[in-house]
């Protein structure tokens, strides 16, 4: 299923910057949140390196507080790293953020839409912010709303949406600019099993559009079903990296949960 009528793959390549050949690359990335006192310091990201190929669906898997959102926020320019380098779309996040912003779509962990606006108005706004043409916005909007089954609710204010619907809208808003690189921070949190599966199908179908997708999750199944490769992070450190199947085989485990257990001695979903 190809959900983008005009695949812009070639354009993407033209727009990518010259500073790095990968869709995304981070080298020895460190983020320390500083508080007023030294004891308040948090090493949220502690020397992570990985690269994401163009067209890949890459997962960051880890328990709560592992540093997934922090990593994403550095990549999309919301946070400055303390140390290390980060490149998105061939551009250095420290030097060429405006260029990066034209290439990316971001689906934040917190569903961030205007509550008093309906789905269409929210989607349209973000299409306009990316300077997408009106006809193109409408065409894509219809398609996405249909695919995720939101069409009927599209004229209802977002504040009247269920948690799952809000997450779906959050996802569509990130896609309206048909970004070359898509950041999905826990895109399916709060969805029930059925809606989650539909959303997985939807995200999977993005692979055919040659998008690069980086997705964070703490759902083992989500990482296994969707990701070409996963980076498992724990306490800000990268503890494993590779295609889910290979990681499972390498550690003689039955799933990624067991891989995590064998490496760290803990469970990802501990206590949940």
């Amino acid at each position, binding site marked *: 299923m190809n959900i983008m009528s005009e695949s812009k793959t070639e354009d993407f390549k033209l727009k990518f910057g010259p500073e790095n050949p990968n869709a995304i690359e981070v080298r020895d990335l460190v983020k320390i949140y500083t508080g007023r006192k030294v004891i308040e310091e948090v090493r949220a990201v502690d020397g992570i390196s990985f690269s994401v190929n163009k067209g890949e669906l890459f997962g960051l898997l880890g328990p709560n507080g592992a540093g997934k959102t922090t990593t994403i926020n550095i990549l999309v320019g*919301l946070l400055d790293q303390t140390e290390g380098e980060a490149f998105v779309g061939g551009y250095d996040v420290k030097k060429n953020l405006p260029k990066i*912003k034209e290439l990316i779509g971001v689906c934040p962990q917190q569903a*961030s*839409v*205007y509550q*008093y*606006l309906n789905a269409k108005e929210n989607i349209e706004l973000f299409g*306009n*912010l*990316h300077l997408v043409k009106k006809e193109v916005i409408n065409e894509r909007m219809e398609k996405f709303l249909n695919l995720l089954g939101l069409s009927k609710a599209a004229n209802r204010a977002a504040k009247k949406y269920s948690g799952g619907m809000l997450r779906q809208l959050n996802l569509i808003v990130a896609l309206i600019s048909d970004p070359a690189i898509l950041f999905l921070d826990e895109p399916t949190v709060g969805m029930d099993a059925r809606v989650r599966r539909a959303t997985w199908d939807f995200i999977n179908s993005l692979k055919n559009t040659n998008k690069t997708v980086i997705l964070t999750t703490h759902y083992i199944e989500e990482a296994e079903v969707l990701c070409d490769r996963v980076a498992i992070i724990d306490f800000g450190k990268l503890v494993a990296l590779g295609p889910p199947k290979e990681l499972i085989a390498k550690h003689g485990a039955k799933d990624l949960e067991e891989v995590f257990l064998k490496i760290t001695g803990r469970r990802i979903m501990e206590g949940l």
Partner: protein
Amino acid sequence: MKRQRIFAFVKIQLKSLIKVPTALFIILILPVALILIFGFAFGSIYVEDYGWTGQDGYLFEFMVPGFIAISGLFIAIPVALSFSEDREQGLLKRINTTPTTAAEFMVSHIISNIFMAIIQVAIIFVLTFLMGAMRYITLTGILLSFVIMIIFTLSTIGFGLITATVSKSAKAAGGLVWIFLLPQQLLASNLYPLPPETQIVTMFMPLYYASDALSLLFFGVDLGNLRIWWDLLILVAFSLVLIIAGILLFKKYGRA
């Protein structure tokens, strides 16, 4: 600056004023209610040699300029609320990951709030006219009143932004904004005569210059009267300082 982005923001900001009941109430319904209540209460009380203009007129007539100025100040409430709510919802961060510039975002807010201020003043003028309390102001005076209120709106937005910056939540902003509103409304609105000593305080309040200039215009003072232009000049200075301070403070400390 891209027009498509600014239009898109202005559109949703104006929608918010209609769809969010508090905003609609504060910006339009409250001023109309004030005019109606005070119009009927004080519309027939005739006073002689009143206030510092030393003119005769209905008490209500002396109050209208103050109500216009106060209503403009009310706009600070939805401004403070909308910025802190957008921040709470993660919308400011989300917008920040799009190619939108801070200038486009701020300019759109300035445009939509000035638009609201114009509607507000127009409604008050129409009501006041219908109530027969617009006997002296000239057409030029009316036009100049709009200019004054447009400039005053900039300082109002500044107050709103500073409030949003120092407030941790939208709830806090809704309360804190009164630090700016209440003293100005009580002391600088020209609604009633106050001892000249209060000037030590009111000279630092932009509302004073707006309501003073409006009062002069309302009583048909000649446009050659320098006091109007002094008021306007000081108001411009205050407004520029406040809006720039508001934008810079919010950009530096208020976004996250």
